[in-house]
């Protein structure tokens, strides 16, 4: 058989709970679903390989948002995230995370993942955020994926690698009925009927084009092409605050974190070209990114992460983390550039745009049980709307989703659906393989993402967005009618390109709907430059209604933890003021 030859074919299976995405949230969701009811049939579907998929493919250096008794309280954390996210937060879900995450830390500890402790045996939590202390290093963080994989094997979770889910099946009663997937190496279809489905498909990280021009040189794992966002949209689920883009401060060109969360607690800091601090706090918020952006454009730019003032032993310790975990090729990159942290600062830049609740707030809308607006459909991790929830949020909310999904599956039978939906989806997926002549997916993807950079990247301007929508619709037309896939690997990329275009359309639509500026750089609309709390202190929900993309407002739910008036704008005061 020739490499990646298209075999086609179709088989059907069924399960109680289907988890799609085996990165961070997914494995935990599958594990908890199974533990909730050991008789339940739980399937974990993954586009790559669960062993090494997702954002933590090479592990993680630490927890960014650990709420540990003695260091922080759930109330304090909820307050911090509410302020960091400009008040647009349903606190119930954040508060629940904050209450549950310590249990998850203990559980991860029992899986063999170590967390830094001080000489008294207490967790050595570090301060990076503006107000509270939540950063906990993981000395063997490179093993996190292996540790969780062992648990999956032990619990006998059925894992299907190299299957890309393309669409959800929706029952006649509006409930989720399962998913359709296609093998990325043979193009064989697998239809999975399920009583409950949990989407854990990561960020939309291949939306903007990295400035290097290398399409896969993204901040997020480049496999995270926003498939979960697109699938939720086509299933009729609501997506929240998509205009609150993800934009991160990264090592220029390498496009990975430098990383201030690791180096900051040792005394490293973000500096301008004069070697001076210009931001109060290195925690990634939209307000911080705006100051970063302003500094880059100012005469005091570019921006650097400065370590050279630190002791050699300290730098060695920082290197032992940065060059081993999360993005280990950082060391190779710096070596190639001739950058020694002891003598030279690391040049920083800002990333391409994306959707990601892990770092901002753009995600499929979920409540405090990880339920989407489609009955039986759940979402967790970077793609679900609980803001700023990072890796520990993915584990914790994945756990919430898994438990609740099994309860749902225990109380419902399979939803009836129209079997014609399968044939229709198969035809849609395979269309690029049926054409003799056309445009390959890489060109369509490149053009779409280049347009995202040209038109959708903040600062956002209405007329530019409208032009961007027009250009993107032309690319969509090419994608729908002229895209070709000559083998199953190219078909995988063709399907990802469709997710990317869906996300680009959603990014444009959501941004135009919110007629104000909010979240610093994430939603900086220069023709609506002010924050307008009177009209826009609300969530926005985007969804497909009668085949059309629509946006609506949703009230912010009453706060669980009150925020005093003089605390509300703490994150707006990021810029260091000149001292007298």
């Amino acid at each position: 058989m020739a490499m990646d030859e298209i075999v086609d074919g179709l088989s059907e299976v069924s399960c109680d709970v289907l988890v799609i995405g085996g990165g961070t949230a997914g494995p935990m969701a599958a594990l908890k679903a199974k533990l909730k009811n050991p008789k339940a049939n739980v399937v974990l579907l993954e586009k790559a390989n669960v062993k090494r998929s997702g954002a933590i493919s090479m592990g993680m250096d630490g927890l960014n948002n650990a709420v540990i008794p003695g260091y922080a309280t759930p109330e304090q954390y909820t307050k911090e995230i509410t302020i960091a996210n400009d008040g647009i937060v349903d606190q119930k879900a954040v508060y629940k995370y904050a209450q549950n995450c310590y249990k998850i830390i203990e559980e991860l500890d029992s899986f063999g993942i170590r967390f830094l402790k001080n000489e008294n045996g207490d967790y050595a939590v570090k301060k990076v955020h503006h107000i509270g202390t939540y950063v906990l290093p993981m000395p063997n963080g490179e093993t996190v994926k292996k540790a969780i994989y062992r648990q999956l094997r032990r619990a006998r979770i059925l894992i299907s690698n190299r299957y890309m889910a393309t669409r959800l099946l929706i029952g006649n009663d509006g409930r989720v009925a399962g998913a359709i997937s296609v093998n990325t190496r043979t193009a064989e279809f697998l239809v999975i009927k399920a009583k409950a489905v949990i989407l854990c498909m990561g960020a939309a990280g291949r939306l903007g084009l990295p400035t290097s021009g290398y399409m896969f040189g993204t901040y997020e794992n480049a496999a995270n092409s926003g498939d979960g966002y697109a699938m939720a949209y086509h299933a009729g689920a609501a997506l929240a605050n998509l205009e609150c883009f993800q934009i991160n401060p990264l090592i220029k060109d390498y496009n990975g974190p430098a990383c201030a969360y690791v180096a900051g607690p040792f005394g490293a800091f973000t500096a301008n070209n004069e070697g001076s601090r210009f931001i109060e706090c290195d925690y990634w918020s939209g307000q911080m990114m705006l100051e970063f952006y302003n500094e880059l454009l100012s005469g005091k730019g570019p921006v650097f992460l400065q370590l050279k003032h630190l002791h050699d032993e300290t730098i060695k310790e920082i290197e032992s983390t940065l060059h081993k975990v999360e993005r280990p090729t950082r060391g190779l990159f710096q070596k190639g550039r001739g950058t020694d942290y002891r003598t030279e600062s690391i040049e920083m830049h800002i990333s391409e745009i994306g959707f990601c609740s892990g770092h901002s707030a753009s995600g499929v809308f979920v409540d405090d049980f990880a339920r989407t607006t489609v009955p039986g459909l759940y979402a967790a991790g970077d793609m679900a709307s609980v803001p700023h929830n990072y890796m520990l949020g993915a584990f914790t909310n994945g756990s919430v989703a898994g438990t609740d999904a099994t309860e749902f599956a225990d109380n419902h039978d399979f939803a009836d659906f129209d079997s014609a939906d399968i044939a229709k989806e198969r035809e849609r997926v395979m269309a690029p393989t049926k054409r003799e002549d056309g445009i390959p997916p890489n060109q369509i993807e490149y053009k779409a993402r280049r347009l995202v950079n040209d038109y959708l990247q903040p600062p956002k301007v209405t007329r530019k967005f409208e032009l961007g929508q027009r250009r993107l619709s032309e690319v969509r037309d090419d994608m729908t009618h002229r895209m070709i896939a000559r083998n199953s690997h190219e078909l995988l990329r063709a399907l990802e390109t469709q997710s990317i275009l869906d996300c680009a359309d959603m990014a444009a639509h959501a941004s135009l709907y919110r007629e104000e500026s909010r979240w610093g750089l994430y939603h900086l609309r220069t023709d609506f430059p002010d924050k307008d709390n009177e009209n826009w202190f609300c969530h926005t929900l985007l969804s497909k209604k009668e085949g059309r993309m629509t946006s609506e407002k949703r009230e912010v739910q009453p706060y669980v933890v009150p925020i005093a008036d003089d605390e509300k704008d703490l994150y707006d005061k990021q810029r260091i003021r000149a001292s007298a």
Partner: protein
Amino acid sequence: MPLATYQTSVPVVVDDAKCIADKGCTVCVDVCPLDVLRISEMTGKAYMAYDECWYCMPCEADCPTGAVTVNIPYLLR
């Protein structure tokens, strides 16, 4: 429209002398998140078939014989 093939220098390099793919090993191909590695039908060794790399390292880290090296893609270097 006619298609042209496009030349690109790929970041992942496999040392054929060390690679044991011809003895049935598929570790690097299995773990790659972007699914860009394949076993050559001609040499029986692993190689990077698609230049779509996140320079993430599982292929190098998990290779049982140390045959795989991940370099930074040229455009980023």
